[in-house]
């Protein structure tokens, strides 16, 4: 243990604790900027400098481990002057068009400016020297270097959390900037559009592409019928942007809000998540049958899930030789989109050309996914606009709704029914758990042998999880699986996806089925979720997801009555010809840079 003094108060901390963390235990707040709980220490911005008695210079509290006998002062005149200078220096290289900025009032630099640098600024604006050059090439986000303050959070996110390194630091000194391979547009590099960088950018340099105005236009167009779907992870995070603590479930209020915003039909991505389980589960069992019974050596196993568009783009860039291992199932968002303009249109007797399909997603990669040329199987663009959780919060605020005092209401029908299995899609391991609940029952006629259907081994925040389920007592049709051990794995965050894929490439992945989500924690930690997102907040959202599941009456995808109905009335059976037309897709190989 290490003993030190901070602002004349004694504190004892474990070895390795930073001065910043030690101060936190005393409830002494030191401002930070480049520091982020998810990322390695950088010590770049220097906003967190403090004075150490006897030291020649100030020290960066985020980067300095507490040492025995240290005497730290966090608010001396020296510290205050340096801090004011540093914040003003950052402002001098930042294009401060705050009133026009999407991040206005949700900007860490703005907050620091508000605390430390109000009034006249000393320094000259350096912006005139950097040509204002906004990269809008990606359908998911834009990158504005004139608002970048070089904290390198995005760079660390891309290399540490995701191991993609689509962006890195280029040039030095006055010309230093965050750039891509050969300064190509973001749409033409290895970027997966996961938006983790967007979620961590402290300013407006990286923001999602917003489609709020287009959605309002559609809502107020009397010729249009606007349907909206909401992803499982949105309901456990939206509240954070509307005054709730992390981990609060706001499903019913969210549905009411969407109705009051004027959407013609408020539906649930959960419905198509259940459908995904039917399609993907059947696909897995079919692959297993081909491999085990028919002796087909060309069957691609392990099979990888395909719900996460960031993960899809990652494998397309980095491991294209394994594209046949990807499930051909579209993501729930895109299944929903394809059905909204076919099945839904037919049932509700609406001209599909008049339907505008909107989705609310915890994700920025979903914006890219909706734009993929493959995603037009209804004959139209299956999903017209994708909004993030954050954008929905903006719309609710724009409409002046008193969110906290809204009544709760239920999703509309059809395509609004869901099960607990669908809800847990939002957390890492959830797709796997949902798939097992259904596949095990198809094969054995019995429920999965876990208390309350809770398959604990596939839950939690560990980067790579593995589980084995022994299949016993099969029904006649699946007798060939008798005694088989189904090996599964789950990875979240592309750094862990990378691990699994390297194992697969080296022949060290003994799995049949692998769930992969691009973002840490799965969709609850998605790039489109409220800012900040960090370890603690992800845990709270995950807890909320499982509590939502536990509160559902129906908890297995195959029990969803609307899913049963759509097979009877429209799709015939999982993996039918019609299903393949609408609910399945293919992938493309992309360059690895």
């Amino acid at each position, binding site marked *: 243990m290490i003993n030190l003094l901070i602002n004349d108060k004694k504190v004892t901390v474990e070895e390795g604790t930073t001065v910043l963390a030690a101060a936190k235990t005393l409830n002494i707040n030191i401002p930070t900027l480049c520091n982020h709980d998810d990322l390695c220490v950088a010590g770049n911005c220097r906003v967190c400098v403090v004075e150490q008695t006897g030291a020649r210079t100030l020290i*960066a509290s985020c980067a*300095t481990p507490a040492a025995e006998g240290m005497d730290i002062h966090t608010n001396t005149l020296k510290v205050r002057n340096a801090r004011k200078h540093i914040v003003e220096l950052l402002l*001098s290289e930042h294009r401060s068009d705050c009133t026009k900025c999407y991040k206005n009032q949700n900007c860490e630099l703005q907050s620091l400016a508000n605390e430390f640098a109000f009034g006249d600024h000393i320094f000259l604006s350096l912006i005139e020297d950097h040509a204002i050059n906004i990269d809008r090439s990606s359908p998911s986000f834009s990158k504005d270097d004139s608002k970048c303050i*070089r904290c390198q959070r995005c760079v660390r996110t891309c290399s540490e959390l995701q191991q993609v390194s689509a962006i890195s630091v280029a040039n030095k000194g006055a010309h*230093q900037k965050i750039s891509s391979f050969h300064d190509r547009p973001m749409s033409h590099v290895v970027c997966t559009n996961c938006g983790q960088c967007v979620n961590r950018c402290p300013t407006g340099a990286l923001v999602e592409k917003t489609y709020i105005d287009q959605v309002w236009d559609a809502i107020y167009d009397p010729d249009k019928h606007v349907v909206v779907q909401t992803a499982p992870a949105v309901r456990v995070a939206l509240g954070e942007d509307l005054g709730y603590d992390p981990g609060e479930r706001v499903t019913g209020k969210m549905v009411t809000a969407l109705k009051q915003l004027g959407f013609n039909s408020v539906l649930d991505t959960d419905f198509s998540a259940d459908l995904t389980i039917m399609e993907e589960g059947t696909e897995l069992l079919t692959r297993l049958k081909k491999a085990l019974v028919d002796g087909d050596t060309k069957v691609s196993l392990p099979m990888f899930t395909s719900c996460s568009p960031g993960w899809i783009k990652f494998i397309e860039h980095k491991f294209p030789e394994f594209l046949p291992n990807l499930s051909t199932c579209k993501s729930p968002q895109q299944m929903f989109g394809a059905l909204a303009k076919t099945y839904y249109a037919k049932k509700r007797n609406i001209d599909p050309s008049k339907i505008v399909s909107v989705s609310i997603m915890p994700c920025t990669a979903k914006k890219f996914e909706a734009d993929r040329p493959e995603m037009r199987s209804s004959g139209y663009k299956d999903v017209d606009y994708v909004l993030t959780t954050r954008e929905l919060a903006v719309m609710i605020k724009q409409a002046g709704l008193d969110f906290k005092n809204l009544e709760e209401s239920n999703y509309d029908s059809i395509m609004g029914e869901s099960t607990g299995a669908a809800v847990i899609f939002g957390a890492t391991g959830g797709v796997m758990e949902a798939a097992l609940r259904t596949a095990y029952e198809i094969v054995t006629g019995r429920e999965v042998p876990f208390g309350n259907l809770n398959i604990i081994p596939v839950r939690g925040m560990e980067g790579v999880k593995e589980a084995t389920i022994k299949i016993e007592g099969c029904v006649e049709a699946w007798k060939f699986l008798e005694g088989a051990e189904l090996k599964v794995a789950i990875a979240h965050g592309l750094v862990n996806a990378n691990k699994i894929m390297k194992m697969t490439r080296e022949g060290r992945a003994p799995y049949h089925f692998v769930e992969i989500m691009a973002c840490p924690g799965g969709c609850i930690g998605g790039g489109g979720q409220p800012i900040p997102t960090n370890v603690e907040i992800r845990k709270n959202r995950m807890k909320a997801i499982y509590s939502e599941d536990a509160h559902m009456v129906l908890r297995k995808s195959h029990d969803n009555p609307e899913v049963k109905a759509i097979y009877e009335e429209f799709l015939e059976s999982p993996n039918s010809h019609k299903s393949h037309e609408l609910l399945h897709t293919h992938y493309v190989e992309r360059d690895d840079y």
Partner: protein
Amino acid sequence: MENKELTKVDLIFEKIDNTEVLKKAFNMTQAGIIQDMLDSGLKGRGGAGFPTGLKWKYTAAENSPDKYVVCNADEGEPGTFKDREILDRVSNKVHGGMVIAGKAIGAKKGIVYLRGEYRYLLPKLMPELEAFHKLIKEIGFDFEIEYKMGSGAYICGEESALFESIEGRRGEPRNKPPYPTVSGVYGKPTSINNVETLVTAMMIINHGPQKFISYGTKDSRGSKVFSVSGDTPTPGIFELELGMTVLQFVDEFGDGDTKAVQVGGASGFCVPRKKFAETIIGFEGVPTGGSMKLFNSSRSMYNVLHNYLDFFAEESCGQCTPCRVGCQQLLKGVEKVKKGEAKSTYLNELTKLADTMKIAAKCGLGQSVGNAFKSIVGNFREEIIY
């Protein structure tokens, strides 16, 4: 204050029997070598002046099977060109100093990080290194040296940025602690020493620490090599005893019209004529890695300052705010004042900024930008304004 006459010394380039000195070192104990360094009072010759004996002692105390001796040959300080000459003329002594350091700290590997622009030295250095490897093997040393090339960034002379560069990453300084003696190149305990320091260490082993102590002053023992340039009839490199005043230096090297001497390069201090007599060249006065630039009355000190600030705005790695943005602000600021677009009092604000950079920048580069700025603006204010 203790003051020595300007005396030319011949230690660095002195002809010695390398084999004999290395054999002598081979037969000494680890502790014995370190003690000689401590007794000699040798301080690093790259400019920062950390006691070499202490650096070796700390690295020796680390318990690790892998340790490194790194020779910093990324000589990039404007106006310094002594390491090039040393490597060109007495590379065996550089390599010899590395072996001795290796013995002292318990390292078997040495890396010379050579400034990119000095690549042309390699055809001569490589055969010399090969012969040297053969020699030390015969003596019994288990030590091997390799060369890594820099690519032209000034910041890579900063020790931890240099390690990053060796490891194949972007040259950016690391957070300290941990210091190199604990976690240096490849995360291993590392003693990183300047070219001249290593040669001096070898000469201390040769002559014993007492001879070294007989040169210089209490705070600045021994002699060192100076790179003399600017308005001087005799530019070049000269090994001089430490402890002389700038006046004594100017009497020897000036052109009779010297108005200022920039001691220690762009990151060093500008000494004006009125302070020549009272300023000692050394750690008690103005320290230097060797760069001595003389300016006569035909020079505009605004241009000198502008040149340095332009250099720093370009060569800052860009990682930390005070240095990346601070350098640009100082540069633009003096331009504005010169053009009359900002009041002369704006220089006071810039001086405060230089003070902040000195205490808040992440590494020695950003921390020392203020040296040149403050000493030039402080002593030649009217030249900056008018």
